[in-house]
């Protein structure tokens, strides 16, 4: 998508999906590198005692997927200015996470493009995060 410019982007245009299936190993690695020892992310018994189905994906890992979707849309010469997401339902280790989206608005003067983003998890159609991103295209 290198070379994309805001005048080539239309409201409603799709954001190419990005996906990740974080397993228990992924969660352990991500928790270690971020120094996140919250037991809901690796201790199955504890996670269930909290009412969860099992160890759950960290909020920041969801954020990384939202960021990647925005960055790939912006392309190598573009820039991600903002990423926002709200957690709607927990995603468990082993769930396939897919972020999709559409262009909400285009500011032809400032060059900013706002994307609506949605993350679905698991084999069903559960929405685990909703959010948006603002990118600048060059």
């Amino acid at each position, binding site marked *: 998508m290198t070379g994309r410019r805001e005048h080539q982007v239309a409201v409603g245009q799709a954001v190419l999906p990005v996906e*990740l299936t*974080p397993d228990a190993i*992924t969660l352990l*690695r*991500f928790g*270690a*590198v*971020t*120094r*996140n*020892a*919250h*037991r*809901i992310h690796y*201790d199955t018994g*504890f996670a269930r005692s*909290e*009412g969860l189905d099992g160890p759950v994906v*960290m*909020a*920041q*890992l969801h*954020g*990384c*997927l939202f*960021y*990647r979707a925005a*960055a790939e849309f912006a392309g190598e010469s573009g820039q*991600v*200015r*903002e*990423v*926002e*997401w*709200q*957690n709607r339902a*927990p995603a468990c280790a082993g769930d396939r996470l897919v972020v999709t989206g559409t262009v909400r608005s285009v500011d032809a003067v400032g060059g900013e493009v706002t994307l609506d983003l949605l993350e679905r998890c698991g084999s069903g159609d559960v929405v685990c*995060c909703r*959010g948006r991103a603002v990118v600048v295209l060059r």
Partner: protein
Amino acid sequence: MVTSTVLEQVEERARASLGTWERRSLGVVRAEDAAEFARAAGERAPHLVDPARADFAVHPMYVVSLLRGAPGADAAEFRPDGMYRDEVPGTDGLDVRLMAGGQDVRWVGEVRAGDLIELRRALTAVERKGVGEGFLLLTMEKVYGAARGPLVEVTERFIVR
């Protein structure tokens, strides 16, 4: 005598801390650590996962995902659930369930390897949500900066049940 619930205790404590800014050092950003973060997040973009590249960049989500800088924390700094005692205001020592509610991350500068990162944060809103006792939604403003100024602004929400 009225006995307050645990959630009421959290709410009272949290409201008392509203608007109080605190500082925390996250240490110096190392390229290797940022690359390890990117790989753990499933990133494949070469400029984010290979610190030997000339165009290597610190993953923009790296510092905002760090709960602590090196060398980490002492055992006494953790709650029984593994979260840091001071991470979610008002919850230290109380048997409550903590969940992330979401974030709004706004980049105003570029985090670079070698940056000494300081986090400033303040609780800015305490809301009771849901029916019955419901849950608390805590909103926190965070600013990550280095010597040259602010780099990332974050609005973060915590759910306390």
